[in-house]
């Protein structure tokens, strides 16, 4: 039987697919903690396993991303702009992508950080994962936001989460700075190519926290409409 006009006017909500995608992206970055541990213990087999796992999850996120994009015709009237939603999706996806890049870099080069900065890098990774976890929490508030029709009270709840994200991100900035400051005097005693990639890895970890923060700020724009 043909769809009735009433049935036909309801599109599929993009909110739960967006949340699924963020969950998937976060599951990638989460594994970086384990990867760092494996690296610390020089367990390269475990590390390789984690890397393939991250890569698999990244592909999963990609599939979710494409599916959501295709299910959002421009005729949809949504409580937020379609553009903002697609931007948010892209930022979420970058968390998965960068996580994959970091794991690839570390495994391919069997990267071991010098003891002087090792614990700091592990700590930085933890902060990044935490930032992303908060971003996921914020995204998971979206169904509550929708239920309250983006009401003031519920927006405050989300604003508070976003504040936490921001402070975690600045924590990651400080951590990066500390690591770089410690690395600089060591440079001359280390193989130059390794040093280049230490900087690269630290930069990418910083980008992860950045992306998580961007998820929060983009969400804020989405709420404001």
């Amino acid at each position, binding site marked *: *039987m*043909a*769809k*009735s*006009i*009433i*049935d*036909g*006017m*309801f*599109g*599929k*909500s*993009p*909110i739960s697919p967006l949340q699924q995608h963020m969950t998937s992206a976060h599951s990638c970055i989460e594994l970086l903690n384990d990867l760092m541990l494996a690296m610390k213990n020089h367990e390269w087999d475990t590390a390789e396993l984690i890397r393939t796992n991250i890569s698999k999850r990244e592909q999963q996120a990609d599939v979710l991303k494409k599916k959501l994009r295709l299910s*959002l*015709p421009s*005729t*949809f*009237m*949504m*409580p937020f702009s379609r553009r903002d939603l697609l931007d948010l999706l892209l930022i979420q996806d970058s968390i998965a992508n960068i996580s994959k890049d970091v794991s690839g870099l570390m495994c391919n080069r069997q990267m071991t950080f010098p003891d002087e900065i090792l614990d700091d890098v592990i700590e930085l990774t933890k902060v990044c994962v935490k930032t992303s976890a908060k971003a996921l929490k914020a995204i998971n508030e979206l*169904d*509550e936001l*929708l*239920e*309250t*029709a*983006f*009401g*003031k*009270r*519920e927006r405050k709840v989300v604003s508070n989460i976003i504040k936490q994200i921001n402070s975690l991100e600045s924590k990651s900035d400080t951590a990066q700075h500390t690591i770089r400051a410690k690395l600089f005097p060591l440079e001359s005693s280390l193989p130059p190519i390794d040093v280049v990639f230490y900087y690269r890895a630290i930069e990418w970890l910083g980008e992860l926290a950045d992306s998580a923060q961007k998820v929060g700020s983009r969400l804020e724009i989405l709420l404001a*409409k």
Partner: protein
Amino acid sequence: MDIIANHGELLLILAVVFGLFMAWGVGANDVANAMGTSVGSGAITIKQAIIIAIIFEFAGAILAGGEVTATIRKGILDASLFSDNPHLLVYGMLASLLAAGFWLLIASSLGWPVSTTHSIVGAIVGFGAVGVGVDAVAWNKVGNIAMSWIVSPIVAGTIAFMLFRSLQSLIIDTTKPFENAKKYVPYYMFLVGFVISLVTIFKGLKHVGLSFDAETSYYLAIGFGILVALIGTIIIRSIKLDPEENEDFYFTSMERVFSVLMIITAAAMAFAHGSNDVANAIGPLAAIYAVIDNDGIIGAKSALPVWVLLVGGGGIVFGLITYGHKVIATVGTGITQLTPSRGFAATLAAASTVVIASGTGLPVSTTQVLVGAVLGVGLARGMAALDTRVINKIFLSWIVTLPAGALMSIVFFFALKGAFSPL
């Protein structure tokens, strides 16, 4: 005159049969749309929806359908032009019933968005303008009706927007949504009861033989509003807050309050639909009866007999039982984003708009009013994703249904004319 005298009975029987056919079509197809938001929100089961529809469509048609029936019967055409040829009016109204009925059947089997209202108005205007003469159509009135098709969804959307915004600030976006729902929802229920009963008392009860002065009417409406609120309060009293179900989603218990009250709004919607769509479906039957009852004297005062509305109410229930329940089962069950609070706001807004239109004698499309109401909730940021292509569909329905109804009724008109009064 001879034709009316000779074939009056046969013509009336035909009119009843065609009228039943129309009402059957409404019951089989259109009711599903009217109940769509109620069933779709998961608030009431399909079985409940059918029972509510049977009772309240019938009640709406009989208690509040009079004004719309009157518009269809004598508002669209200038009856004085038929004084010399009353049989032409009878043929035309018969043709209109047939045309609208067939069009409904064809279009809904093809899945096109159709409105009984548009097809019947198009059909009457069609045979009037072509079969009798352009002057036969009361273009002023037709213009008003056409305006009401544009205005009614907008009005419903505006009401829904404001209604939903008030729900948002009083109930949903608060620290205690469940408690506030229990506290404030009875006031909304009062509003439903008050508006619907006021319109019904002022405009609908005349032909049932009851009439009240303004003061008594207001008192009665207030009383009925309080009664509805009381029933609502008693029903929600039994709903308990369940912290466990709220862990995942903070608003589950609150939604259950709306869910129970949806039964009352669904009833209001069915009543509204009955008052408008059923009434305009049997308007032509009322016109034919008036001519035949007065032996062909047009314009003679004849009250709208209740049995005519009974035919409409009976036909719709018949349509529901034979076919409509299947359609209801497919409409709305897949709408996951329509939570009871949304369904409540949209249905209430639509029901109020349609009942007010019915009271004013304006035949509007319940489905389109409902679409307007849902879009209103969407504009208040209450819906995740609404497909605005539906607006195109509504325009399409205006553009296609009116000429289709007109064309078919012209054909049927000349066929009937040829069959009964061969020259």
